[in-house]
């Protein structure tokens, strides 16, 4: 009798669990799984000149991987994203650390609000604003000229560095938020214990705080990869088309030819890269045991 009740309770718990997870699963299937499947099918139906229904084929994949300029775009996207992640983390960490450990609690909220201010403006407007700042008549050149560091304006915008710069401005704050959220959860007694055992401040930071803040860095890095590698706006406005990233090549296929099969192939490549990065960082993201 008891075992029957337990079995019923377990069954009810399973049903309840299923009921709670079903909406999330349905959401993922509907808005992620299904579009991904459509994209995969689309990539196998190459464009025909006369609009007749195409035959299943790997032609779009062959066309993509046989174009060095398109393959180069993958490499450019990976390198740009890696740079943005590295620079954003390097700059965001000290900011988040000071905020979490040095700034009085009552000021932290204000500082965080200031930190997320850049998110309040339109992404496109922000990119064009950077263009004005970096222009020959912009403030950076004006300062450099007035400090007699340069004689004539130098080209700061319209190159890959400007793209990285624009990205970093956005993602530094995103990373600062994830790292800060992680740092404030670390039990301060761990550091005190390390110092009681004779570790210097630097040693206790390296041996205790830094490893414990890896999950925050991993989450920030992953979000940066997801948002950065698929972004079209920033490289298009700030990069001056001096080199192409994969989203720009995808837009080329859509804007002129409406070549959805080729665009699907490229989008799937992007998805594979993001999935690979996720596999790489999922362990550090889950390693928080505070």
């Amino acid at each position, binding site marked *: 009798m008891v075992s029957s009740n337990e079995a019923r309770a377990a069954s009810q718990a399973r049903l309840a669990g299923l009921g709670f997870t079903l909406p999330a699963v349905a959401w993922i299937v509907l808005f992620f799984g299904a579009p991904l499947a459509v994209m995969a099918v689309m990539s196998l139906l190459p*464009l025909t*000149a*006369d*609009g007749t229904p195409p035959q299943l084929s790997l032609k779009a994949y062959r066309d993509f991987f046989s*174009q*060095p*300029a*398109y393959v*180069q*775009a993958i490499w*450019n996207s990976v390198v740009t994203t890696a740079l943005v992640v590295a620079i954003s983390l390097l700059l965001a960490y000290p900011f988040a650390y000071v905020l979490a450990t040095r700034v009085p609690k009552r000021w932290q909220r204000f500082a965080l609000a200031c930190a997320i201010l850049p998110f309040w403006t339109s992404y496109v407007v922000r990119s*064009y604003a950077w*263009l*004005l700042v970096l*222009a*020959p*008549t*912009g403030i950076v050149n004006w300062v450099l000229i007035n400090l007699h560091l340069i004689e004539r*304006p130098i*080209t700061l*915008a*319209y190159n890959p560095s400007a793209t990285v710069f624009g990205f970093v401005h956005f993602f530094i704050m995103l990373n600062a938020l994830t790292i800060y959220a992680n740092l404030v959860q670390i039990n301060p007694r761990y550091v005190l214990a390390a110092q009681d055992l004779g570790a210097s401040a630097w040693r206790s930071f390296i041996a205790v705080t830094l490893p414990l803040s890896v999950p925050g860095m991993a989450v920030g890095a992953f979000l940066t990869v997801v948002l950065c590698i698929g972004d079209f706006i920033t490289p*298009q*406005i700030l990069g*001056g*088309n*001096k*080199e*192409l990233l994969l989203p720009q*090549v995808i837009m*080329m296929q*859509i*804007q*002129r*030819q*409406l*070549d959805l099969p080729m665009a699907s192939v490229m989008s799937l490549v992007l998805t594979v890269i993001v999935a690979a990065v996720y596999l790489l960082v999922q362990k550090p993201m889950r390693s928080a045991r505070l």
Partner: protein
Amino acid sequence: MNISKSLWVGAALLALTPAAQAADTLNVLTWCDHEDPALLEPFEQANGVKINFKDIDSTAAILAVLGQSKPGDWDVLVLDQTDTGRLAGMKLLEPLDAKDYPFSDIPAEIADPKLSSVGGTLYTIPEKFGYNTVAYNKAAVDPQAMTDIKAIWDPKFKGRVAMYDYYVPMIEYVAIALGKKPAELSEADLPAIKDKLIALKANSSMIGDVTTVQQALASGAADILVGGGEWVTAGIAKDNPNLDYVIPTQGGVRWQQALAIFAESKQKDLAKKFVQYIVSPEAQGKLATSSCYWGMPANSKAVLSDEQKAILRWSDQPGYIKVSHPYLQMTPEFDKALQAMWAEVLQAK
């Protein structure tokens, strides 16, 4: 509510449904220059119809809209005339009769059947044109130097040139600089054109779309713009009167837009009336001076004031038309080859 009242309410609601509206509506896929009420209202009033337009900006956008529509949903389209062959090849366009349209009032180069017909069948009617030019800041650059297309490769302009991010006019300008006729380009010409484009890129400060090159000209990041339409400078000329444009003596590139009727349209007579209206002298004047962008009307009898004609450089047109080349008439395969080459140019270090 009594029965007769209910019937009236029901009838009124029925009148609001799209199906009921369809009979009194002409559905047009159009660029922004066809959307002024001053242009559309005379036609709507004369024919007792409403123009239901959807704003598109490219042939790819037309295909995207058609992909989400039922056959017959759309009646008329505005297109870049270089895509006549592509859309006719997909059997999307209705064959037209030249006698129904004022071809005698359209300059012969603009009315060239090579641009409007496929296999001897007329599919598109030219309505507006203009030029992809060499624009420059005359406060910073000698206007005389800009009349030579080869000047944009001159090292003295290094870092001061902006390239327009559309491969068709850019490739044509390079072909002109190499002494090739754009209409005769083939895949064999592409390696030389690619090298020349890469050399131009090395001399340039940036490559961008309309807004980005406007920003570059306005901020001084570039003093010269190659391949952009005259609308690029027109949009910012008020704030920067030193911006001007020229068609190089070796030749220029001419854009041309056209009207066509969808083969699946269920209102072909009304669609034909609309096309006839747009190429009439009155409508051509309004289309040429649209609030979205100005451009030369195809019909030389367009109703325009002297001031408007001066802005459009009306008296220069015979010379401009003579030295300008229309956009390349391409097969989809050649178009893909050009696009891939343009990607290689953009990736070149």
